[in-house]
């Protein structure tokens, strides 16, 4: 592994919870974009962005999926902001055992936002394009980072499987299934 410094474009979605109107169009279009073939199906449960919302408490927090976490946090805090109480989880982007968001409903594998990476590149991720309320704003900034290997999507998935079942079972299954083909 090479270690060095390089400039990297960091893509972010700035979230304005005051502007969210809870329509969940972001979830709809995200899951459609990531379907295979593209847009052929739609299911918010597969979305990599979810609106954590409790309408009667006026809580609306769009959160997009970040890293997979194997274990849940030891302590979970509560925050009071503008008189409204939020669970820490409301702001957390992890796919973790404490909740059922950001997991493929069929396999249970973690989901992660890829900023709608595609060829040709989109001007903005689809969730941002479909948020007419401007609760989601796309931003890019340059950052200097340590260079490292990029972890491919398949590795994230495999690691999660290994956490769940152990490496041996995953390897056995892979060997068995590849023999079948």
């Amino acid at each position: 592994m090479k270690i060095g410094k390089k400039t990297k474009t960091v893509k972010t979605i700035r979230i304005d919870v005051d502007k969210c109107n809870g329509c969940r169009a972001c979830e709809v279009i995200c899951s459609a974009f990531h379907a295979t073939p593209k847009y052929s199906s739609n299911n918010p449960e597969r979305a990599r962005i979810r609106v954590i919302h409790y309408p009667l408490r006026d809580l609306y927090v769009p959160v997009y999926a970040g890293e997979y976490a194997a274990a849940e946090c030891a302590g979970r805090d509560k925050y009071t902001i503008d008189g409204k109480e939020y669970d820490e989880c409301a702001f957390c982007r992890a796919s973790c055992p404490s909740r059922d968001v950001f997991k493929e409903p069929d396999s249970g594998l973690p989901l992660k936002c890829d900023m709608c990476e595609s060829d040709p590149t989109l001007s903005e991720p689809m969730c941002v394009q479909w948020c007419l309320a401007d609760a989601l704003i796309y931003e890019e900034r340059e950052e200097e980072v340590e260079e490292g290997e990029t972890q491919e999507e398949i590795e994230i998935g495999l690691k999660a499987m290994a956490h769940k079942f152990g490496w041996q079972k995953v390897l056995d299954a892979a060997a068995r299934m590849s023999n079948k083909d």
Partner: protein
Amino acid sequence: MRYAETGFDLEVDLTRGNIERVVTDPELTKLYLGGLGTNAKILWDRVPPEVEPFSPENLLIFSTGLLVGTPAVGCNRTIVSTISPQTGLMAYSMMGGFFAPELKYAGYDKLIIRGQSPDLVYLWIHDDKVEIRDASHLRGKGSLEAAEMIRQELDDPKVQIASIGLAGENRVWFASIEQGRSSASRGGIGAVMGDKGLKAIAVRGTGDVHVARPAEFIEMCNEVMQYIQKRNENPIPGVMPILAGLGSPQEMAIHDEKWHTENFAWGNSRTRRKGFWTEEVEKDWTGTMESMRTRLVSCHNCPMKCGATISIPGRPTYMMKCFSKLTYTMAAMSDLEFGLNIAQAATEYGVDAFSAPQVMAFALELYENGILTDDDLPDFPEDNEERFFWLLDRIVRREGIGDALANGTYWAAEEIGKGAHEYAHNNIKKHEQLPLKLGMLNPIYFLMYSTGEKINITQIEGNFPQAPFVTREEREEFCKDWVQVPDERFKEWFLDWELRGEKSIPHYPGIEATCEIVNWQEQMHYIDDATGMCAGLSSFPLKPPYHIHNLPTFISAATGMELDEERLTQIAKRIRNLVRAFNIRRGMRKKDEKPPEDHWKRRFPELEAELLDSYYRFKGWNEQGIPTQESLNDLSLGFVAEEFLERGILQDDDSGEVTARVEP
């Protein structure tokens, strides 16, 4: 492979506790799309006219629209169909919100409920797992209160819930079904739900909805999104603010209520208050709304913000939309603060915000005129606003006079007698209407009021401007990008339409034009009610993103059906005629088809008769408003014609045999 729809209905028999997942016939989708269309077919087949609203044989259908659950922007409606206890006809109330998409993700196009549970229960649908659960601990709870308790019980904030309050449990004939952000209120469907012993339906779905031609479909969705944005930035000039934009009238966002408060009638739909909207009132009401409204909120997958969260100190938070903002205020001749306060109680009780305030104002008028006395209203408060709370409490509990009032003004007047029917003056087909009392007969509205099967004007009117524009220049400007009209004749009628003189109401638009305009507006609603599209982005506002020229491709790209304007028009016609046929079979006739006597001051009986007769002919209905054998056959509704002949509703008109019989 089924596209846009799941291909399954969920059938629940509450008498036997039986639950079945039933495959649906794809041929029915081709004939009736979904939503209201297929609901009407099921009701026609399974609910004969002898069935009473409150009986185990009456069905209560919660249907998703055909395109609900796809990325079709603003397509999220639940169409609830049953027999109305108040009208005895088909009630097909609808709601937006999040219920229908969740039901579709759970794997069902419809939930069909029959039977009657001996104990109060709720239904829990979690994908393939469906349970009938005890709800005895929810008895008497408010609609939102019960929904929150269920959500905690199921420990999942993503569960969507439709529930009834006390009014539904006690079978108030204008009880609603509430869903937090939205409600299905008209026709007393909440009472049918209560009669079935069903307090709530909780649903959570995690499955996929597929579309047939994804690339084409999503491109159209993107265009709709862009059009909405453009349209939001460019309101239509020359019309009042609430009609200038898209969505349901933006009552929650817009403070200017001059139009409603000065043109709609106050009290028991009696008094117009010219000059009411002063600077002082505006300041006061704006302050009320701004201090109580915490957020503007949307329905599923829609950028419009037609609803709002309302938090009043000392009361639980609730959500509101549209004209319910003013119905209580105006019925009680009060102010907005009172209106928002009592609407909170009314939402938890679960009553229709059109009927309930009018029933209360009606009772008050009866009291003021000595028809109801202190004996009927023991301990009736002195204070006007307290009286409304007092009446509401008694109606939803069916206590004392509340028992009669709970059936609505028509039936309450029948029961009270002593000339009370003079005060139940704002009904069509026994159902309370918008509190509107106007001057000059409007031919378009005359036909819509008379013949609308929804029995509710806001679900029939739409794409044609409600009134002429003042100058010809303004009209020409409006016509420039009016792509939604079916053909150029509609522009001509609008261009020539004047406020005064020869080319003004009641004689202009002429009879032919009036028929065409009413037919067009109605047709767009029937398409929406089948696809589950919100009228607010389609059939209701001026210049909407969805219209007759793009909907066929849109529906086709989602479902894979072959469709063009002609075929879609034919389907809409088929649905419209089947809904009418259902009501005809239940006894509806020409005598029932009329607006309230006092809706307009200036009436023209001859013109009105000619309008109605012409419209019947235009629609292919006979002089009683019954679809003829020939027009039924043309619409592949031969099975309706056959039953009409068997029942003697139609006589064989020698126009040929009953052909094109379609009975899948």
